[in-house]
């Protein structure tokens, strides 16, 4: 056998382990024979390569060889895997789309407890349907069945994403006034609301600024999270978020400073 580097050996062991796992359920296939085919193929492919063979070189060979799952004949796959295979390679399939919409409708018809659970289930099925369509936006008529649960979950996710600091700050705001009044000598005419709003806006601004920086470095995060609606997201949008965040932060900190210097005097 050709000498492999430690990482390459690990990759090969993992590939063989996965193939053996898949083959456990296949009665007509000799796992030993498959393993021999794999090692023989790799050995032939890597003949003449500089030793020890690197993990990258082996990965190229394994990629050409295909997934470990393919060593199981299609007729011996378990029913659920055949089902997924048919979904992926069969003719236009609407089952996932109908299932998604059905779960959402049942969720609305049943109790309040079932609504979030079934909406989440419908969301997962919708994402699976999108995945089966290779994440193409043009799922045509299927979108009427797939999109409702996606939109509901994405809206909740988007609100939480953009307003995360508010979730933590709003409950605290009720206590702040007592704390501030105990620490500072302020009159009744003091615009407490201005200070509170400035803190909220500054938090939001800082949060958007951080998000802008993260999305600028990794523009794929929103694309993956909000697929397929954020497919057009790019660094320009991240820059807009960053600039808006920065402007909010500067503006709110300036008004906070103004309110502090004008109305607040330590006791």
């Amino acid at each position: 056998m050709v000498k492999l580097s430690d990482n390459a050996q690990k990759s090969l062991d993992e590939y063989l382990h996965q193939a053996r796992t898949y083959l456990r359920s296949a009665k007509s296939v000799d796992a030993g024979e498959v393993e021999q085919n794999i090692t023989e193929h790799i050995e032939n492919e890597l003949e003449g390569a500089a030793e020890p063979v690197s993990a990258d070189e082996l990965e190229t060979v394994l990629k050409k060889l295909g997934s470990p799952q393919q060593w199981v004949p299609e007729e011996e796959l378990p029913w659920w895997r055949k089902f997924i295979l048919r979904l992926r390679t069969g003719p236009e399939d609407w089952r996932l789309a109908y299932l998604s919409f059905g779960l959402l409708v049942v969720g609305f018809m049943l109790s309040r407890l079932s609504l979030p659970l079934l909406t989440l289930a419908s969301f997962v099925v919708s994402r699976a349907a999108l995945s089966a369509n290779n994440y193409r936006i043009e799922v045509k008529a299927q979108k009427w069945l797939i999109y409702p649960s996606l939109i509901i979950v994405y809206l909740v996710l988007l609100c939480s994403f953009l307003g995360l600091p508010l979730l933590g700050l709003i409950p605290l705001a009720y206590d702040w006034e007592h704390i501030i009044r105990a620490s500072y000598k302020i009159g009744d005419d003091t615009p407490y609301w201005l200070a509170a709003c400035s803190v909220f806006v500054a938090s939001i601004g800082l949060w958007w600024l951080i998000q802008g920086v993260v999305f600028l470095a990794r523009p794929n995060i929103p694309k993956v999270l909000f697929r397929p609606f954020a497919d057009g997201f790019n660094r320009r949008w991240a820059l807009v978020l960053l600039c808006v965040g920065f402007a909010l932060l500067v503006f709110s900190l300036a008004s906070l400073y103004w309110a502090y210097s004008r109305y607040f005097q330590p006791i």
Partner: protein
Amino acid sequence: MENQFLDNWATQLRKGMLELCILNAIKGTSLYGYDIVRKLRKLNALVISEGTIYPILSRLKREGFVQTTIRESTEGPPRKYYELTQKGEQTLSRMNDYWRDVKTGADALKGE
């Protein structure tokens, strides 16, 4: 959607064609697994992942279309060589005839 349709169509077509090509590759000769892969590698559109060829060879053997012989190799462990059985040769001949009819018919339609 059009791409998906094309992908599905190509997958269905590949399934049947790969068996025909494997049988044709070993017709009149005996080859070991990797040699067959190398021969079929030229058909880029047909062989998406090379590992799909070995399970097909095993199935053809189980169904009696090919037989194997183990031969010593100077380059490593003994190798398993595949060759057509009589049943395989007869079936391949009928498969080639069938494919020729399909191709002629399809070409004729294309030319109409």
